[in-house]
């Protein structure tokens, strides 16, 4: 939600003090930490999650006329959603180029997200 900045000359702006950074710091919400995102942790979490749904789930479906359909649905959902998430994270694993930002965005994000 950071794109609705009015355009003003950057010369007129001063580096804001901590107090005027905005509601985030006033409410005591900690700045988002710039720790590295690991790759292994999300992979383990999501593989386990969709694995539970797709591989363990079918064992718990109650017997009835719809058992086959429900098992098919569980497995298909798990496969589709896991594959889609995996493609998204793999595409961002080794980016070959970075985002090109406007100077106002750089200025704002630099001090809001740090």
């Amino acid at each position, binding site marked *: 939600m950071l794109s*609705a900045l009015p355009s003003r000359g950057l010369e007129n702006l001063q580096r804001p003090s901590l107090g005027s950074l905005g509601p985030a710091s006033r409410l005591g919400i900690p700045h988002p930490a*710039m720790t590295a995102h690991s790759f292994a942790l999300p992979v383990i979490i999501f593989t386990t999650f969709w694995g539970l749904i797709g591989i363990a789930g079918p064992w718990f479906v109650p017997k009835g006329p719809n058992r086959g359909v429900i098992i098919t649905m569980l497995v298909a959902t798990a496969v589709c959603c896991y594959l*889609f998430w995996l493609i998204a994270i793999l595409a961002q694993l080794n980016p070959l180029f*970075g985002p090109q930002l406007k*100077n106002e965005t750089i200025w704002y994000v630099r001090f809001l997200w*740090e």
Partner: protein
Amino acid sequence: MGSMFRSEEVALVQLFLPTAAAYTCVSRLGELGLVEFRDLNASVSAFQRRFVVDVRRCEELEKTFTFLQEEVRRAGLVLPPPEGRLPAPPPRDLLRIQEETERLAQELRDVRGNQQALRVQLHQLQLHAAVLGQGHGPQLAAAHTYAASERTPLLQAPGGPHQDLRVNFVAGAVEPHKAPALERLLWRACRGFLIASFRELEQPLEHPVTGEPATWMTFLISYWGEQIGQKIRKITDCFHCHVFPFLEQEEACHAALQQLQQQSQELREVLGETERFLSQVLGRVQQLLPPAQAQVHKMKAVYLALNQCSVSTTHKCLIAEVWCATQDLPALQEALRDSSTEEGVSAVAHRIPSREMPPTLIRTNRFTASFQGIVDAYGVGRYQEVNPAPYTIITFPFLFAVMFGDVGHGLLMFLFALAMVLAENRPAVKTAQNEIWQTFFGGRYLLLLMGLFSVYTGFIYNECFSRASSIFPSGWSVAAMANQSGWSDAFLAQHTMLTLDPNVTGVFLGPYPFGIDPIWSLAANHLSFLNSFKMKMSVILGVVHMAFGVVLGVFNHMHFGQRHRLLLETLPELTFLLGLFGYLVFLVIYKWLRVSATNAASAPSILIHFINMFLFSHSPTNRPLYPRQEVVQAMLVVLALAMVPVLLLGTPLHLLCRHRRRLRRPTGRKEDKAGLLGLPDASVNGWGSDEEKAGGLEDEQEAELVPSEVFMHQAIHTIEFCLGCVSNTASYLRLWALSLAHAQLSEVLWAMVMRIGLGLGREVGVAAVVLVPIFAAFAVMTVAILLVMEGLSAFLHALRLHWVEFQNKFYSGTGYKLSPFTFAAADD
């Protein structure tokens, strides 16, 4: 697996229905709705069938019903729907119904006729009274004096026939549109010898037949001379005027008027009585008609079904052949037993082998029905081939969501569908007549899943009404880039666009754990990244979907006993598909994993590698992804091309060999044939389904192996598959194209509408007031353009991907549905 995996087993059952119990048995079968009758008398015309007389009686009764219905409707009453389920009545009841209906119809006709006659009479009386009551007074006096004064100059002839110069009168009434014409004609024909006065009645009178009010014109013609009188009468006859005797004296006039009033009073009373009797009759019709209609409808259906059975005079019974699901055979037998023991005879059902392809039966509930519906819209599956519907339940909403991905839009769709699902049992909703509403309501479970998956893909694309959200902290650090590249405020002021370089340490901190990083929504080059991501995603999803389709074909080959096709078709197909396009997917994933930003400038281009793979050429500037890549690629291409002749010639040659081997051993086969087609025994489960299928198939192949047709068919299949691999993979790029279109439309709508609204005005009041119409415009356009238009578009493309790219790998769709004989339409 579930019952939706493939069609249920449907057997051909032969029914022996003794003549006494045939009607009740078929009526009972109709109530149950289990079986589909096969027409055994197809060569016989409709007029020569056995029960044609009964069908005709039913049809005549239906004609009478239509007449009664029309009368009820004319009287403005409504027929109540029949209560409860009424079975088809036994044939002897038909006579009773017929008599009652005929009697009612006759009574109704009589009463109507009487009513008409009485009304005509009343009309006449009213006209007469009006004519007499109409004041033509001054005219009369004028006529007298005028006639007296004008007598001398006009009538020069001495005496003779003109001696009687009495003034006579003709009084009557004429319809208003004829009055001017009458007047003109009278003037032209009898000018100078008459005086006509036309007056309009104050009150309109009702026309007796049509009931329309019409204001009549009364006229009073005073004339002298016999011949003129005759002329006038002829003219008034011509114009269909009602002529009444005119009385000059006042007292006679009054007396006549009084008499007329008395007569019309009596007539009105009689008319009232008649109408009361009419409403009584109509009440009886209302009671009798609905159940009778339902019953006769069922009766006619039963006779039409009986007409399809063949008659066996030796056994004094009717033989019917029906398609029935094997699961329902016990119910069928029980029904026959019950209805025939009432008559004291017994009806028998037993299963017989069939050479024709049975109809397909897949039982669905209200959730799976819409998904089965979209599969059946392409084509009903052949008997017992794999049904794509259970997979479509998930893959169709998923592919829709890939093209539609947005959390906000998905949530709106999900809530709309949820509202429909929660309200589905309300009677107001069920009986709505609007077609568009019915379409949406019928697909409510479809919309529910589509909305749900769209929310998920919206989170992955990180788009909520085109806005990204930072659930997790972003993986790109602007501060690190700025600090390390020395981006001071002055530097930033000079350069409007700057790019973050992942090579700089600390700038790229790792992949965003769930979805697309929110920094990309702020970037000017976000399309470069997203296009690359979405195109590769489309190809990966496409290859996986198509490979799944080919694998489903394995189940078909195994079930129909065509195991040679596993080796000769499925294996080459999978090798071709995965060797070429599976390798492309491998290249994509390998590059994602192994090529990083350190040597991004010389990053290999997958597209160039793929093109060179087919052309066996080499681009020096494009470095390989892994050592010995060219060797591997050459081997894969050669392998894939080698699969083509296997696909082309494998199955036909195998079939030919088998055919020749069989022809060389005729005697052994014939004995088997006799065993297979022996007399059916009385037990229902005398035949295993495999024996039936195998027997049928072998007979087919023995009889009809035409080499050129087999080769041609296989050539077409090979070309379709190989060329289709390329074109279908490219076709899946529509996933990219539509999701790009949706994202861009969404962003434009936000930027052009909401952002301007949110940025207006410094004071709180102005912004709040202005935002109301702006948000209204935003909401209307979101629903109309993004939800309805884009939703329909993505629905259509997801449907196409299923019907063409997925189903042509394994599904033939050339079957027909089991449509059981049922009275369901009559009960509604």
